[in-house]
């Protein structure tokens, strides 16, 4: 399951020198296109609004204009609400990640290693929920949330995302290859099923857990639609909502806007560069999916 970078061996074709040069040229041009907007965000976050929209754009800021960051954090009204909003995003993403990992691991373990009547049906039902797009159920969920009075609260932000079917699928695929003998040996030694889960299964599934936790964290960090529906107060807003608001405000200048975007991106980019293999294995999982 763990992602390995493709073999370095040149396995598909041995291009001639000319073609080789062309491929390098193409790949580097595309890499520049793909990296440019991110670099643009960071360089522009250190420039005054005038410099950003000056033609031609100068990729190296003249002098580092830190005031953008100060302005971004302070907000146009000077309320420093962005700090609170970042904290909200962190709380939601961390809680959702923990609960998704925990419940997905439990269900995945149950589906992979226990034989019970109706197991296949349960598996089908859980996979079936993957077909229900969030966009199709957001209105009923919103009505339920307002009826329960949990709109505009952490509970409301977190509740609809506590488990997801993809996580269960991922964990099940991981546990299926786990040797039964070890579990049976633990049972003979008198371990309870919960103890087996806690002391054998969890410590041995770090790669799968890390992949799932990171994917979930990223999805929540990114989530716009649900908070947009249920959050009303400034205090409960998450980062995407703050960005939307900041952009719509009259006195926002482009430099501060980019600083706000950069602040939102730095944590996730750091995690990405530190733990890139888990990000990539998240993408790779799809192609190992069979039937």
């Amino acid at each position, binding site marked *: 399951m763990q992602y390995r*970078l*493709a073999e*370095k061996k*040149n396995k*598909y*074709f041995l*291009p001639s020198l000319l073609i080789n040069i062309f*491929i390098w040229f193409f*790949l580097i041009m595309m*890499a520049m296109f*793909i990296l*440019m*907007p991110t670099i*643009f965000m960071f360089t*522009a976050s250190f420039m005054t609004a005038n410099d950003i*929209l000056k033609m031609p*754009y100068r990729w190296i800021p003249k002098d580092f204009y830190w005031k953008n960051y100060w302005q971004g954090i302070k907000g146009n009204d000077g309320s420093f609400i962005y700090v609170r909003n970042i904290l909200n995003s962190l709380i939601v993403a961390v809680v959702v990640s923990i609960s998704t990992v925990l419940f*997905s691991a*439990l*269900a995945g373990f*149950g589906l992979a*290693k*226990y*034989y*019970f009547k109706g197991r296949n049906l*349960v598996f089908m*039902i*859980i996979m079936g*929920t993957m*077909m*229900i*797009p969030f*966009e*199709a*159920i957001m*209105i*009923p969920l*919103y*009505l*339920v949330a307002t009826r329960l009075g949990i709109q505009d609260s952490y509970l409301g932000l977190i509740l609809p995302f506590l*488990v997801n079917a993809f996580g269960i699928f991922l964990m099940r695929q991981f546990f299926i290859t786990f040797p039964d003998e070890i579990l049976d040996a633990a049972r003979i030694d008198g371990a309870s*099923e919960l103890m087996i889960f806690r002391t054998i299964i969890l410590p041995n599934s770090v790669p799968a857990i890390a992949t799932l936790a990171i994917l979930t964290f990223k999805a929540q960090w*990114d989530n*716009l639609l649900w908070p*947009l*529906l249920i959050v009303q107060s400034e205090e409960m807003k998450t980062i*995407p909502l703050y*960005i*939307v608001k900041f*952009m719509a405000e009259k006195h926002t200048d482009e430099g501060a*806007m980019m600083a706000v975007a950069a602040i*939102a*991106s730095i944590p*996730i980019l750091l995690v990405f560069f530190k733990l890139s293999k888990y*990000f990539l294995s998240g*993408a*790779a999982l*799809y*192609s190992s999916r*069979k039937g």
Partner: protein
Amino acid sequence: MSKPKLIYSIERQKARWGWIFVAPSLIFFSLFSFYPILTAFYTSLFKKRLLSLKPPDFIALGNYTYLLKSPDFWNSMRATIVFTLGTFIPILVFSLIFAIFISSRKRFQNFLQLAYYSPAVLSSVVAAVIWLLIFDPRGLGNQWLNFILHTPGVDHKWLANSVMVQLSTMLVYFWKYVGYFTIIFIVGLASIPQSIYEAAKIDGGNDWKNFWYITLPLLKPTTILVSIISMLQCLRTFSTQYLFNQGGAPLAPINVITLNIYHTAIRDHQIGRASAMSIILFIIMMLFTWIQFKTSRADEISY
């Protein structure tokens, strides 16, 4: 005869634990997936308004017939389909090309994969904000395009023109997700055994033939997978269009179905109508998932 009974009871106990492990998730899904989708269907049969105290009127399929006659709804269908086709086809083609090229490199494979994947890490709100600034009349978008086309000083109206704004949203989405699908293709390529190429070499195949007769056919399951995932993702697009509209772009050309659901429910308070739209979106996506299921079953490949 006590022994078989003992095994039987151990099995029973294990079965019980299986249920206990699965139960929390099952309960969760019934409450937060199945119940809402059933309520969405139920609500779609009523004329229901948000915040209204009077009981909703039952109008059977009234919301659906209304939608089928509404030009606004058909505009949303058009916007969604144009966006989906215009985004997923370039993503499919380019991610395959990128994957083949990157896999053929002896050096910097790692770096290239990370670089191409990196936009997928940024949040879609951040992506939209960056591109809004690039598409500013005085921004980088015009500078690049004018440089390529040798047309100094022309404003290409990235956000104002109704065709351009659609292209702009597609470009943002393409930029953000092409690397993600490149990785999926690279993994698919890596799973093709080297021995097949060696056999082809003995049989005198050249690179071009290898690509057409070996790589591409063996990559068929990955290709189907990528096209279905990317298509489903495009059908659900929301953030880019929402942000572009907030940033001053006209709504009509980019009023995709999810955006329309959101506006119908929250701005117009038409819960019944929004639910009907949700159900239509759900059915479309079910259809695609079903196609994926069918085709992936038929295309199991063994080497």
